C-alpha cells in the first residue's frame, strides 16, 4: 500500500490538487453556508477526473504494462483498486478541507431555512463521496479504454458539460449525476437528489465489475 501511495500521489499531484481547492475557496463567492456544497461539487468532479485519469494509463505510457501483462490478473486488479482508493481518500480529505476553507475565507452566514449545519455537512459529505467515487472510476475506465489519459479526461469533460448544465438538469432531473448541485437548496425536506447519487454508485460498480475485462483487453 505504501508503494502504491508513492506511485499515485507524487508531489506535483498533491500540489495542484491542494492549490485548486485553495483557489476555489478564495474565488468562488458564497453568501450562505448551503451554497458551499454546490460550489464545490462540479469543480471537484473535474479535479477527480484529472487526478485519477492516469491511475493505470501511466503503466501504458511507461511501457511497464508490457511487464504487467505477465502478472496474475487478480493482483493487477487489486493494485488498480488500491490506487483508486488511495487517490479518492486523498481527494475526499481535500474536499472536507475545502468545505472548511470556504468558512475561513468567505465567512458565509446560515440561511434561514437551514435546520442544522451538521446535517448540511453530512449531506455534502455523502454527495461529494459519491461524486469522487464515480468520477475517479469513470476517468480511469475511459483512459484505459482509449489507452490515453487525455482522451479519458476529455470524455469526462464532455459528460460533465452535458450533465452539469441547465439542459442536463431538465433532461435528467433528480437522476442527474449532479443532482445534489441542482437540488432546491431552500427545500431541505427534498431528498430526491439521492436518486442521482444512487445512479452514480450503480454506474461506478458496473465499471468496477467491467475492470478485469478492460484490463485484459486494453491493459
Amino acid at each position, binding site marked *: 500500500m505504501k*508503494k502504491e501511495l*508513492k506511485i499515485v500521489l507524487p508531489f506535483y499531484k498533491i500540489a495542484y490538487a491542494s492549490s485548486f481547492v485553495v483557489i476555489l475557496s478564495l474565488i468562488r463567492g458564497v453568501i450562505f453556508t448551503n451554497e458551499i456544497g454546490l460550489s464545490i461539487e462540479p469543480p471537484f468532479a473535474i479535479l477527480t477526473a484529472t487526478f485519477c485519469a492516469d491511475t493505470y494509463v501511466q503503466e501504458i505510457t*511507461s*511501457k*511497464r504494462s*508490457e511487464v504487467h*501483462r505477465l*502478472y496474475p490478473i487478480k*493482483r493487477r486488479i487489486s*493494485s488498480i483498486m488500491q490506487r483508486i482508493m488511495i487517490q479518492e481518500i486523498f481527494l475526499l480529505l481535500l474536499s472536507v478541507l475545502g468545505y472548511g476553507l470556504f468558512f475561513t475565507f468567505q465567512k458565509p452566514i446560515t440561511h434561514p431555512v437551514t435546520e442544522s449545519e451538521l446535517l448540511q455537512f453530512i449531506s455534502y459529505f455523502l454527495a461529494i463521496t459519491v461524486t469522487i467515487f464515480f468520477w475517479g472510476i469513470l476517468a480511469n475506465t475511459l483512459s484505459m479504454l482509449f489507452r490515453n489519459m487525455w482522451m479519458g479526461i476529455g470524455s469526462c469533460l464532455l459528460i460533465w458539460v452535458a450533465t452539469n448544465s441547465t439542459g442536463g438538469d431538465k433532461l435528467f432531473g433528480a437522476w442527474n449525476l449532479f443532482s445534489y448541485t441542482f437540488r432546491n437548496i431552500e427545500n431541505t425536506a427534498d431528498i430526491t437528489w439521492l436518486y442521482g447519487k444512487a445512479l452514480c454508485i450503480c454506474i461506478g460498480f458496473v465499471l468496477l465489475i467491467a475492470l478485469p475485462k478492460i484490463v485484459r483487453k486494453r491493459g
Partner: protein
Amino acid sequence: MSIHIEDLTVRFKNGVTAIDHADLDIPNGIFGLLGENGAGKTTFMRVLTTVLKPVSGTVTLDGILYSEGNYEKIQKKIGYLPQEIELYPNLTVQECLEYMGALAGVEKKECRKRIDYYLEKTSLIEHRKKKMKQLSGGMKRRVGLVQALLNEPEFLIVDEPTTGLDPEERIRIRNLLVDFSENRTVLFSTHVVEDLAATCNQLAIMHKGRFLYAGSMKNLAEEAQGKIWICKVSDEEKARKIEGKYRITSKQYVEGGLQLRVLSDTQPELDCMSIPGTLEDAYIYFTNKCNK
C-alpha cells in the same frame, strides 16, 4: 523449455507486415536474436510475451499452444525486459523491485532474498536506497533486468539488455544471463554482435520480418569464410572507388594509406588477401545478400 514457432505472421492495422510467415525453434540455453532496427525483433518478442496476437501461425511453449485459454499458464513461465521501460520514478530501487515481485506473485521473504542476490550480481547493491529517477540509464537498465528475473522464469526474454551499459557492466550482465540460462531458455535480442558472440551458441538473424538464418554460431561464422578480404590503398580517392564497387565493412587509417575490409564472394581485383571472417562479417554478409 523449448519454443516452437510455425508460419507466424503479424500484421498491424495500418497494413504493415512486421513478421512474415516465420518459422523458428528456440532450444534450451541462450538463444540470440540478431537483426537491424526495424527487422521485427521487438514485435516477435511481444508475440512471445502474449502482448501481441498474430494474424496467423502457431507458437508453442513446451507444448503449450499460445491461445487465449492458455495465456495465464504461459505468462507465469515468462520474464520480460522490454526495450524501453521506465520503472517507477518515485520508488527506490528496493521498493520498485519488491513491488514488482509482489505483483508477480513472489512470496515476500523469497522476493527480498532474490533482490539481494540479483542486486549484488548487477553491482546495484549500494544503490538500492536511491530513487529510480536518480539512477543513470545503465543502472535503470540493470534494475529492469532484475525485475525480469525475480519470478525465476523458465523463459526469459530480454530486448537489448546491454544498451547504455559500460563495457565492464556489459560483461557482468552477459555472465549473469549465461548463469541464469542453465536449464532455462533465454531469448537475447540485440544488434550488438559482440554480445551474442560472448554468450550464445545458437542464434537467428531477422531481416524484414523473416528469419534469414537460424542455427549455430559456428556455422554462421563459417558462412563468411573466404569472403572477407583485406586491401590496402594509398589514398581516400582510391578507397571511394572500391567502396562504390564492393561492400566495405570497415575502413581504417594505417601507416602509408587506408586499410579496407571488403566483403566479396570472389577475390576483388585489387591487391588483397583473404582473412578469417568474424560473426559480424557473417551477419553483414547475410543481410547484404538479402538486400541485393
